[in-house]
């Protein structure tokens, strides 16, 4: 019985020792090698004091070491915390402090950032996988792979222990950490394997970076199914032609990404020239796939099954919709039905079930649900709903997503009940961007809105009222934001106004602003 991730890897190493577990670029790692190298990393981590219940950061680009890092960390009983390598350093320092991270596992490519990071006030004691000269401890990967293996059997990891914490945008201006256990993470892997019939013959393309919840399919379900996961390199994600070629040369059987990556490959026009006959599943999620592009793609690739996947990072995946025919222009593509071991409610503002077909907030109860938000009991409580029965109760996660049921019994996504948006699959709280810009001393007032460009792209736009005598330019604002928040949350467009249009209750009239901007 497999109930933790280390057990999942051990089982794969016993059953398929020579089978490739992960591949990235020209580097391969078999299940046997992965098991041994993660034992070495875990032994090293234990030797520097990492113990069950700790959190260890994973600070890397897309690379083979991500697989060693996460399973190595989990073997110690600690939880891994992925940290986006492109984040501004102030933000990295915030995460290290918020999550009490003393050790980072990284790669030499980020040496310069390691040196800069060591200057910040954080709990950091060491960086593994760094060859920079630091004022804190550092260890190279060569040293780690020379570590003799300690007896790790003494570490007693239970299903309810934390496996990873994934940070996402928070409306307070600071990101929040979503805590998942071995139980919730492994259940997600098990459900994915059942739902998509994954076997050790499958080759999964992992396009998402480690800090993005879509990556859990490749990193978790891959090893549990003893399949091969191809970690798409950063370079491939930026060059759609190379990316499309990769699907052909790697004989990918399952693709999972945000729609944008598929649209970019479609637009290269080279897909029809490639042999993609191995591809049997195309999964997409994170945001809405424009019908026009999805339709084109499905006409081009008639063989694979297409699935629209839905689920906030708090519950991993929870619904899917098998797209059987290329969608017509005006239809809303359903997010589908909940999968196994999952129940849902659709509530109105008073926590009452809405009538059939009415719009309400989606609540999810599932074995894949998170344990809560790290160090934030209040928010955890606020996002939960307890349904009590005679002898038991069920906890639902309030997704904040508005849905309704269509005539065929499929769920349709109808927007948000707050100011969270998805741009290129990234989950962004508009309040967080406003909070960031408001910190600027020369800003008197700020409103952030999302406008649609002529090309139907969503664009973040910040409208600013400057303080008197301020010489603030749009470039200054962008630079200011780039130092604080992730680059995908930095407004592309900055406008200055002398005053905002207001509603009757003196609130900023954001709808009016959007009208003014799109005129």
């Amino acid at each position: 019985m497999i109930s933790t991730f280390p057990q999942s890897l051990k089982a794969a190493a016993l059953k398929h020792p020579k089978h490739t577990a992960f591949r990235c670029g020209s580097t391969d790692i078999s299940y046997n090698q992965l098991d041994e190298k993660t034992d070495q990393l875990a032994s090293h981590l234990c030797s520097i004091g990492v113990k069950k219940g700790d959190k260890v950061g994973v600070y890397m680009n897309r690379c083979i070491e991500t697989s060693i890092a996460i399973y190595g960390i989990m073997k110690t009983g600690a939880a891994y915390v992925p940290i986006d390598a492109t984040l501004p350093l102030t933000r990295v320092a915030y995460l290290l402090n918020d999550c009490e991270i003393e050790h980072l596992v990284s790669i030499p490519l980020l040496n310069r950032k390691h040196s800069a990071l060591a200057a910040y006030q954080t709990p950091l004691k060491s960086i593994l996988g760094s060859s920079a000269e630091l004022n804190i401890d550092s260890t190279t990967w060569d040293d780690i792979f020379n570590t003799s293996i300690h007896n790790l059997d003494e570490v007693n990891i239970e299903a309810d222990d934390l496996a990873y914490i994934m940070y996402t945008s928070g409306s307070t201006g600071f990101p929040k950490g979503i805590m998942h256990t071995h139980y919730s993470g492994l259940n997600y892997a098990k459900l994915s394997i059942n739902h998509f019939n994954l076997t050790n013959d499958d080759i999964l393309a992992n396009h998402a970076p480690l800090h993005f919840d879509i990556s859990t399919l490749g990193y978790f379900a891959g090893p549990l199914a003893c399949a091969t996961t191809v970690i798409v390199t950063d370079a491939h994600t930026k060059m759609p032609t190379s990316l499309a070629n990769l699907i052909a040369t790697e004989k990918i059987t399952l693709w999972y990404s945000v729609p944008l990556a598929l649209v970019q490959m479609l637009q290269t026009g080279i897909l029809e020239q490639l042999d993609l006959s191995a591809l049997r599943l195309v999964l997409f999620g994170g945001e809405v796939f424009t019908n026009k592009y999805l339709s084109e793609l499905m006409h081009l690739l008639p063989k694979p099954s297409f699935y629209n996947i839905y689920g906030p990072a708090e519950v991993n995946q929870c619904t899917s919709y098998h797209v059987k025919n290329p969608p017509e222009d005006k239809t809303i593509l359903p997010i589908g039905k909940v999968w196994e071991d999952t129940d849902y409610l659709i509530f109105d503002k008073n926590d009452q079930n809405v009538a059939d077909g009415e719009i309400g907030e989606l609540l999810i109860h599932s074995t894949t649900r998170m344990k809560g938000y790290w160090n934030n009991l209040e928010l955890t409580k606020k996002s939960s709903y307890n349904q009590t029965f005679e002898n038991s109760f069920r906890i639902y996660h309030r997704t904040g997503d508005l849905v309704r049921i269509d005539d065929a019994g499929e769920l349709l996504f109808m927007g948000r009940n707050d100011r969270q948006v998805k741009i290129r699959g990234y989950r962004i709280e508009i309040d967080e961007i406003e909070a960031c810009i408001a910190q600027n001393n020369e800003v008197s007032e700020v409103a952030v809105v999302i406008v649609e460009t002529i090309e139907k792209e969503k664009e973040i736009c910040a409208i600013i009222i400057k303080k008197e005598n301020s010489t603030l330019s749009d470039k200054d604002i962008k630079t200011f934001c780039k130092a604080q928040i992730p680059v995908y949350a930095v407004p592309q467009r900055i406008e200055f106004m002398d005053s905002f249009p207001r509603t009757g209750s003196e609130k900023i009239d954001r709808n009016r602003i959007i009208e003014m901007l799109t005129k």
Partner: protein
Amino acid sequence: MTEIILEYISKILSNEQLEDELQAEDDLLGGGILDSLGMMKLILFIEEKFNVKVPPEDMTIENFMTVDHITTYLNKK
């Protein structure tokens, strides 16, 4: 040519505050310098500035990894 591309990337496209000046041999794709949309903008810029057409099949890692790779590719055209 090299200078023009370097300047455009450092001034307009770069996601990160570059600590050192961008060099022609720096990896544009592996690190955080450009994202996929930034790369698309760079290709549009090159097409306009140097009056060339970059067909989709040429938009590969081999041709765009560094500014050196880009100039080698453009000189072949």
